[in-house]
């Protein structure tokens, strides 16, 4: 009976990616492993002795310099030597022992056995290429929600001109096997006809089927643009309670497709989105608050899989948008139409669509002109009603008073442009802290043209070099919680010593980077994932970096939501011990990538002065 010391199998089996291997494979690997105590005096002979091994650090701290002179500081749980094993002739390294320690040497034969496992191979391939494991996000069943619609529409729209008869329309639907048609005039959308219209408006009423289809179509239907994503389409369909949504090209508004509920049902396996539909059905403040208060329990009960965590922030932000629109509608019902053009604008996490259970409300009213006393009174009262209403729905009032109920946040477009000019004139660190939140903005209700106007006028201002340099320096002032030796820098939280604030020390840093590059490129969308996608597409940053940062952002958000929902908390401080070994590796890789991206942005936008 030959045995292996428990601590050896324990350590290997808990070190990702070996944790995915079966017991027998792990035992064979452990059995062939040599354990060394690596010191400055024996390193030459030992590294030579085990030059065809994978090194897994159990204790100690080591500096590894690769053939390009890049240094990596490694400690427990880290690997080195795998590049030389995977790409013979490459991966020459120098090792400096900063603190001696126990290192496991896994021979190449056993490393090759481990590489037969797809997940192990991908781990080391990703580590070799210095990117976050795609599997951190590929497990998501919700990535399709983030893709633009035009990438997901699989067939051209079936459309007819308005003068075609009802019978011909029905024949065309039957022939193409579709449940709806787009009705056009000069190639532009003017209505839609659905199965239900044929049933309710034609058959049930005995209507003449030779009449023009325009007689029974739904006129001026809701639509969506081709460059928006499936999530926005679903949110709109849920909010309006419709089952067919025409997709128009963003440039010329010609129809390019149709999203139907059955398309959505085919792809959609998550329940968390249905909250949106429920909120839209509320007809008064009481019903709205009653539904809204069920959200935390609803999320906790329904968000089970990785993909649910990925869209939870978007769902919550959409839900807050709908609550806002509902509250404004209730207010208008009671107090009459607004006396002046207005737009309800949201900032920060709601604008970026990455709200969490702990997010508070950040909003403002943008007005078409400076209001007179009675107009001002109307909007003051509207803002009070909506902000307090959101509070009643569980969206916390903002401690920093960034709410439309604050008179300073009910500005005309001209005044808002002036305000932006002041930010640019004096971007001190204190001022940046104050106005940073306003740089992620989105219109939620009212006249969106006002908001668009403001964005267009602010866009060139924000490209100011000095302003961007100041923002880049500020963005670099917060560091990822990783020591030079690749160890997590933890803080105490709730009696545990291994807390990491994912929001402050990681997610916000990526938000800052995406915002900065977007401002420099004149991109006005506020969502971090969309910003990164665009930045990669237009070459402001490399596609690889954009994809990697996006994956990291999604991964971090997934960890944050899982933490909040599993533990029923609203904070962003996760415990390292909550994470699997693989997640700890991924988190470290993420932090390193964020750090590199921070350095890059400082080089690019502030001439290297951090």
């Amino acid at each position: 009976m030959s045995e292996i010391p428990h601590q050896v199998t324990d350590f290997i089996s808990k070190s990702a990616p070996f944790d995915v291997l079966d017991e027998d494979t792990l035992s064979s690997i452990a059995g062939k492993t040599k354990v060394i105590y690596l010191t400055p005096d024996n390193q030459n002979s030992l590294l030579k002795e085990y030059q065809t091994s994978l090194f897994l650090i159990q204790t100690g701290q080591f500096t590894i310099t690769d053939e390009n002179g890049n240094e990596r500081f490694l400690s427990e749980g880290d690997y080195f030597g795998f590049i030389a094993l995977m790409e013979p002739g490459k991966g020459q390294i120098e090792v400096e022992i900063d603190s001696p320690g126990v290192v496991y040497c896994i021979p190449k034969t056993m490393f090759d056995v481990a590489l037969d496992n797809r997940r192990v191979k991908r781990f080391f391939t990703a580590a070799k290429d210095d990117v976050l494991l795609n599997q951190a996000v590929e497990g998501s069943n919700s990535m399709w929600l983030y893709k633009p619609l035009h990438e997901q529409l699989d067939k051209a729209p079936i459309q007819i001109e308005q003068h075609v008869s009802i019978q011909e329309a029905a024949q065309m639907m039957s022939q193409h096997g579709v449940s709806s048609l787009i009705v056009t005039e000069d190639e532009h959308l003017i209505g839609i006809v659905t199965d239900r219209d044929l049933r309710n408006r034609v058959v049930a009423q005995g209507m003449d089927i030779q009449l023009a289809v325009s007689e029974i179509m739904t006129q001026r239907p809701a639509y969506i643009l081709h460059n928006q994503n499936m999530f926005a389409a679903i949110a709109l369909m849920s909010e309006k309670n419709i089952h067919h949504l025409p997709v128009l090209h963003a440039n010329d508004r010609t129809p390019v497709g149709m999203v139907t509920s059955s398309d959505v049902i085919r792809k959609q396996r998550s329940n968390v989105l249905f909250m949106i539909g429920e909120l839209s059905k509320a007809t008064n403040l009481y019903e709205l608050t009653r539904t809204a208060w069920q959200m935390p329990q609803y999320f906790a009960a329904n968000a089970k899989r990785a993909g649910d965590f990925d869209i939870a922030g978007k769902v919550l932000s959409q839900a807050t948008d709908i609550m806002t629109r509902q509250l404004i509608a209730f207010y208008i019902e009671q107090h009459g139409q607004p006396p002046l053009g207005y737009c309800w604008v949201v900032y920060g996490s709601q604008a970026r669509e990455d709200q969490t259970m702990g997010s508070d409300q950040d909003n403002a009213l943008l007005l078409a002109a400076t209001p007179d006393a009675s107009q001002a009174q109307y909007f003051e009262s509207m803002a009070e009603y909506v902000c307090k209403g959101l509070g009643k729905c569980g969206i916390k009032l903002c401690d920093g008073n960034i709410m439309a109920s604050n008179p300073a946040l009910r500005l005309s477009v001209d005044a808002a442009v002036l305000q932006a000019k002041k930010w640019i004139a004096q971007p001190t660190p204190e001022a940046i802290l104050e106005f940073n939140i306003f740089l992620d903005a989105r219109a939620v209700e009212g006249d969106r043209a006002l908001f668009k106007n403001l964005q267009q006028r602010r866009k060139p201002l924000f490209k100011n070099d000095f302003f961007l340099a100041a923002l880049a320096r500020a963005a670099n002032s917060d560091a990822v919680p990783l020591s030079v030796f690749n160890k997590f820098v933890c803080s105490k939280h709730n009696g545990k010593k291994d807390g990491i604030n994912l929001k402050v020390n990681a997610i916000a840093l990526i938000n800052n980077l995406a915002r900065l590059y977007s401002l420099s490129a004149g991109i006005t969308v506020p969502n971090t994932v969309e910003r990164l996608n665009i930045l990669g597409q237009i070459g402001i940053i490399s596609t690889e970096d954009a994809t990697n940062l996006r994956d990291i952002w999604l991964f971090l958000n997934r960890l944050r939501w899982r933490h909040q929902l599993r533990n029923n908390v609203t904070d962003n401080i996760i415990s390292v011990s909550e994470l699997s070994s693989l997640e700890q590796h991924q988190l470290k890789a993420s932090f390193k990538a964020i750090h590199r991206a921070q350095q890059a942005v400082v080089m690019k936008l502030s001439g290297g002065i951090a």
Partner: protein
Amino acid sequence: MAFWSHLRDKITSLMTEHKGLPDTFKHTSLSACNWLAVDFEYSSLDVSTAKFMSAGWIEGNHTGIDIQSSYYRLIRAQGDLAQTPIIHGLTPSDIARGVHVRDMYEHICQFATSHIWVLHNAQLDMGMLKELSKRLQQPLPAIVCIDTMQLALYQLYKKVDVIPKGGVILSKCRERYELANAPAHNALSDAMATLELWMAQMHSLDPSGCMTLNELKNTGAIKVFARHNESEHELV
């Protein structure tokens, strides 16, 4: 405390400790030695009645610890084992399935001259082994041992006058070298943990790897144990 001093005296009286190293090892440098880290689990700490319940050992040398050399056996036992098996996580059927203590003894004695044995509290384990050799009516060849606990005491006394209770138990000694936590109460795991500790201690005593075994004698951590048939007190 009285119990422990009594036990220590008894163990000491039961064994023979050689005064010097065998010639073959006298000038051997540490980097040229083969190591065998050894640990046993017993049914009690009373040498006269204790039974071996399990044995574990593992080999190492200047190139590291060879996991493939791991040995772990439960010892087949009869009679009252009191509560100890519970501590070691063994069931009576586990113990019944084990090897005979004689087989284990003969196996480990094969390492007597080829390896330096590494133990944490060698007095206890070698005292028990010596008692076993008497029971088995077998000689105990001269075995050169490194006692990592003694070495820890030597190093600590250079820094402090009083050593706190439990200050030299295996896990505490490992902590001082920032070695990872290791499971306790398993002979093989403890042997492995002891060998890692010895490697760390060796680095702190002799970073360049030039020291000989003889030069370590002043630490009190080098001991030679033997029992030649009935002559218990033979010294080298």
